[in-house]
């Protein structure tokens, strides 16, 4: 499925045009949520399904997601995790500075690296970093962290409008879609531009519910942005994680919906909403 995505990126004019697209990020080896998300997006008549990267990490059996991405014709971008796996880097490149975050990130990355086939690593290496499409009258730019850096965190409470205006101007886009933080949000600027962080489908978003989220964008008279909850068999996923010897903190997050790791990168406002 890398070829269609690459073609979209590399051919500037014309870009592919759609009326409704589904977009998600952060699969994190959660094949069960991925399957449920693709099915849901098709049921809602999305004309194309996009993944903004980070296929691995956190979850069990990373190779299980790749056949689903291919079978679902998901147009995929490369995230920092994908880049690290493909290039054989020693760490995930998530950009953590905190010792506890880095401790769990190292465990997760070592497991994922060891269980991702060479073929799939090569596929991750072939993915583009950006993608432009036309959605109705809007020029949409998709990326992983931000248009300027693959591992930049764009949290709702720490992304000022002044920065967004600069990103829209510098990258000539009406709509920017990103992920990397794992928590969804959407802001429309007075000028009509939209920033949509589509969240992640690989783990819940620290709200006490095991569900995950993706974004559905529809071009009507105005751009409509809808976040869609996805319920999947999270208990089975948690059992698989336990069986693979992944940290119990990871499975706890899947079961409860509360983040137990990667907490230190959260700004005060987002951290305050969680349990830990």
């Amino acid at each position, binding site marked *: 499925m890398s070829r269609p995505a690459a073609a979209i990126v590399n051919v500037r004019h014309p870009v592919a045009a759609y009326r409704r697209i589904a977009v998600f990020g952060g699969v994190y080896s959660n094949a069960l949520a991925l399957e449920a998300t693709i099915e849901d997006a098709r049921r809602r008549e999305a004309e194309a399904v996009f993944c903004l990267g980070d296929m691995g990490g956190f979850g069990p059996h990373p190779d299980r997601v790749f056949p689903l991405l291919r079978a679902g014709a998901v147009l995929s971008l490369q995230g920092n995790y994908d880049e690290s796996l493909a290039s054989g880097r020693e760490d995930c490149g998530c950009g953590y500075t905190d010792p506890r975050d880095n401790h769990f990130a190292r465990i997760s990355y070592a497991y994922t690296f060891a269980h991702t086939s060479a073929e799939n690593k090569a596929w991750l290496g072939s993915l583009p970093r950006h993608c432009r499409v036309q959605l109705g009258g809007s020029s949409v730019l998709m990326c992983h962290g931000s248009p300027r850096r693959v591992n930049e965190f764009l949290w709702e409470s720490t992304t000022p409008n002044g920065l967004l205006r600069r990103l829209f101007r510098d990258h000539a886009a009406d709509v920017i879609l990103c992920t990397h933080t794992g928590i969804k949000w959407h802001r429309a600027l007075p000028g009509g531009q939209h920033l949509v962080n589509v969240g992640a489908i690989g783990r819940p978003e620290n709200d006490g519910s095991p569900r995950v989220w993706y974004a559905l964008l529809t071009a009507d008279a105005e751009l409509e942005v809808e976040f869609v909850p996805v319920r999947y068999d999270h208990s089975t996923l948690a059992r698989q994680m336990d069986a693979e010897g992944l940290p119990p903190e990871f499975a706890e997050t899947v079961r409860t919906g509360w983040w137990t790791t990667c907490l230190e990168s959260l700004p*005060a406002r987002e951290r305050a909403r969680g349990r830990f």
Partner: protein
Amino acid sequence: MRGTVPVLEARGTPFPSAPFVRFSTLWVQVTGTWCNLQCVHCLNASGPRDPWLKPLCAERVRHAIRESEALGVKDIYFTGGEPFLHREILPLLGVALAAAPTTVLTNGAAISEATVAALASLARGAPYSLEIRVSLDDVDPERNDRVRGRGAWARAVLTIRRLHAHGLLPIVAATEDPGGEGQVGPGLYGRLRDFLVDLGIDKPRVKILPLFPAGRLAGRGGDLLSEEVLDGFDRGQLQCAEARVVADGGVYACPILAGLPGARLSAGDLEESFRPVPLFHPACVTCFETGMTCRNA
């Protein structure tokens, strides 16, 4: 200080340089080196008497915030000295929070209950996150106060408790002491985290900083960076590639080196300071070797 510090001419210096990649972070050295404490490791030798770097007037700070907002700043940090000694710190934090997420670095010793309540009110009403970073170097009062001065531990811990009680989630920042047992890296981190949990803080946040050969420890520096050492290293990862500091006398490259002639990039205009930075100081070696950032994460 103003008018006596030359603007650095990077070209022709023997130092390697870091590129200017983008403007992300504005640092405001709001009280210069005026502080109520006199820590033995202070990286800019702040203290209560005759600060060698003067505080900024409120209008200078407001101008810098307006300028940085127009330039697409991502986050704003207030430091010093001790920012809460500035008479207008609360309104200035309000101005900053209207533009971007804002962090204030404090020793916690000059923050009253009323100030904490005002901070909580600011945080609730702001569109972006307000972060309060409180310095505490050790969970042991005696060991902390040997570094930070008598009574510093008790006042910092009281402020941490008050912030937590008002729904704010302080970041506790500690400086490593390579000479002390358990005072570096994960060991120090774990002890602080456990300490905060024992205090009843259910969302403990800890940041560890290395010691810098600057300020009161300026004599501890070793070799400077060279082109040879930096060969193959992405210098765009250094924080001076994305940050600028407004302090008395102009705009500087780095919050640790603000006020030093070698770090001065413009007389006051932010955009004029968007140029390569000479890596001229032993503290640059620490940044390079540890990959640290003065930002929260």
